[in-house]
């Protein structure tokens, strides 16, 4: 187990270095980091020269990158053109986004797994077709369409939920969390259904049945646990999609979280905030996946013993 964790950690290092390097090169070497820093006009010469010196852009690329990483490790994501530190902006907003994300993960796990189990157990029956068709529809409708319609129907027309979630209270976040979870619910249901159906054909299930165990016990104890393992990995991967989805959901419901901050920074052409936020989110994504991978080793001993 220890070996497995160390191997995972070591494998993670080149990925983190690679991802930050690509982003750095794209932003600071290929792109123009002064875009939009002076409003709609191009920046004056003197400003560009000072900016390049301040951000070490006159040094060789590898030195620039190392200096940038040094700042990153110390939690410095830069100062945006309102004079605020990007880290502070994110720190003020992350509790709301974390809450929204957690609610979405709970919703997608509960509904997705339940639907997937029902469909997988009654394969070929009505409930199976219902789950298959409705998940297909959910996957096909982009999240900003689902969000806009949910706001129109449940917020504006029916009035069941607040139309916007400006304060970010749990009650206000229920509808946005369902929207954010919608596509993932469908993926989890399909994944669960496929895993369950495959595991139900496994030899150990036949053995369990031959021993005379009830159907409930065969599925509940033997099959379900095995089928859940890939779902947990999926939830880890899904954090990336949830982060993207949060940008859209927070925009629609005007939630004061990291996603809405990113959206507004795009509109204001606030490059430091856009890049800083995305670097931060990508790093969180990689770390969450590292944790999920390690957890996977605990859940499925076959993985860590190879």
């Amino acid at each position: 187990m220890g070996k497995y964790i160390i191997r995972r950690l070591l494998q993670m290092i080149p990925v983190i270095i690679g991802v930050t390097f690509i982003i750095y090169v794209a932003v600071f070497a290929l792109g123009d980091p002064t875009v939009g820093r002076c409003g709609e006009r191009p920046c004056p010469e003197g400003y560009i020269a000072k900016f390049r010196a301040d951000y070490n852009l006159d040094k060789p690329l590898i030195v620039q990158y190392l200096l940038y990483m040094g700042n990153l490790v110390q939690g410095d994501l830069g100062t945006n053109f309102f004079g605020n530190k990007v880290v502070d902006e994110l720190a003020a907003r992350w509790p709301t986004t974390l809450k929204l994300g957690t609610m979405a993960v709970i919703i997608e796990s509960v509904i997705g797994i339940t639907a997937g189990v029902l469909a997988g157990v009654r394969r070929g029956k009505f409930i199976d077709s219902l789950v298959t068709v409705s998940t297909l529809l959910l996957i096909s409708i982009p999240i900003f369409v689902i969000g806009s319609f949910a706001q129109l129907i449940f917020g504006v027309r029916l009035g069941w939920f607040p139309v916007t979630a400006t304060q970010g209270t749990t009650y206000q976040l229920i509808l946005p969390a369902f929207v954010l979870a919608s596509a993932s619910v469908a993926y989890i249901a399909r994944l669960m259904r496929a895993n369950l159906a495959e595991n139900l054909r496994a030899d150990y299930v036949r053995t369990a049945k031959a021993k005379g165990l009830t159907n409930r016990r065969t599925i509940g104890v033997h099959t379900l646990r095995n089928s859940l393992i890939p779902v947990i990995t999926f939830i880890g991967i899904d954090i990336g999609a949830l982060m993207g989805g949060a940008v859209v959901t927070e925009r629609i419901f005007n939630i004061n979280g990291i996603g809405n901050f990113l959206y507004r920074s795009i509109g204001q052409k606030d490059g430091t905030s856009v890049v800083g936020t995305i670097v931060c989110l990508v790093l969180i994504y990689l770390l969450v996946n590292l944790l999920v991978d390690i957890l996977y080793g605990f859940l499925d001993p076959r993985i860590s013993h190879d």
Partner: protein
Amino acid sequence: MTDTRDSGLDTESVVPVTTDAGGGLEAPLSAPAKGEKARSLGTDAWDELRRRPMFWISAALILFFGLMAAFPQLFTSTDPTVADLSKAREAPSADAWFGRDGQGYDVYARTIYGARASILVGVFATLFVAVIGSLVGIIAGYRAGWADSVLSRIAEIFLGIPLLLGGILFLYIFPNDPLTTPFLVQVAKVALVLAILGWPTIMRLMRSSVMQVKPNDYVQAARALGASPTRIIGAHILPNSMASVIVVSTINLGAYIAIEATLSYLGIGLQPPAISWGIQISEASGIGMIRAAPHMLVFPSIALSLTVLAFIMLGDVVRDALDPRLR
């Protein structure tokens, strides 16, 4: 990272790679009965597809939206760039079937003309991904050794960037200028960004199928007979891996259309005056607009969702037809 993340959408198993040269997935163990022709993977899959109503529905939808993208004039004679501000936000009527938007444009005409952007981005992104991914995957799988290690690590790095976040970042840095960038360049830019972030899915698929096929006797025999790597890849490896690449590409096409619309919705993908469903929906959202003119939201949303649905459904159906384990 684990391998289950191979495709954003494809959470179920991907088509298995056949290990026999002829490619018959359901190669009968006994000799075929008299008068019955030997069945290939293609005929088998086609027979299965023909019986599925889902296949015909998705094919019809794709044809419909494809026609819409190629010849929008067939569907409407209204110019989508002509606005009548005095009729802004008018509800659907005989004059404008889907009503008018905030600038007084005809929503029906713009929904028709919006198909082109979505389909083009989807097709280009999928093509780029398939070409880059297949090439890199074949090199990694065929060369193995250190080339494989290096290419696989690079793929892992790109998989570490979530698609939408990466799309936002790259398009922010290389923005589409609304007035000076021609439509096709905007489309190509969005497609290229999606391809840069998306190629590892196909690369992993190709790599694993090459590695699965390569040690087979018939490949070794071909090599012993002096076949060049190009010939071995073209004649023996590609036909075996095409099925899964096609399935995943079809499903991805739907996903790329959705991502393009999302990026345009966030104001960072295609830029007005370009006409696209994402831009239309973006203009229609916001609480004021939703209250005053819900028709602006409804029609482009339906068109967009149906297009995405058609491709995902087609991919699903084709995969089921090619994968006998699910029958």
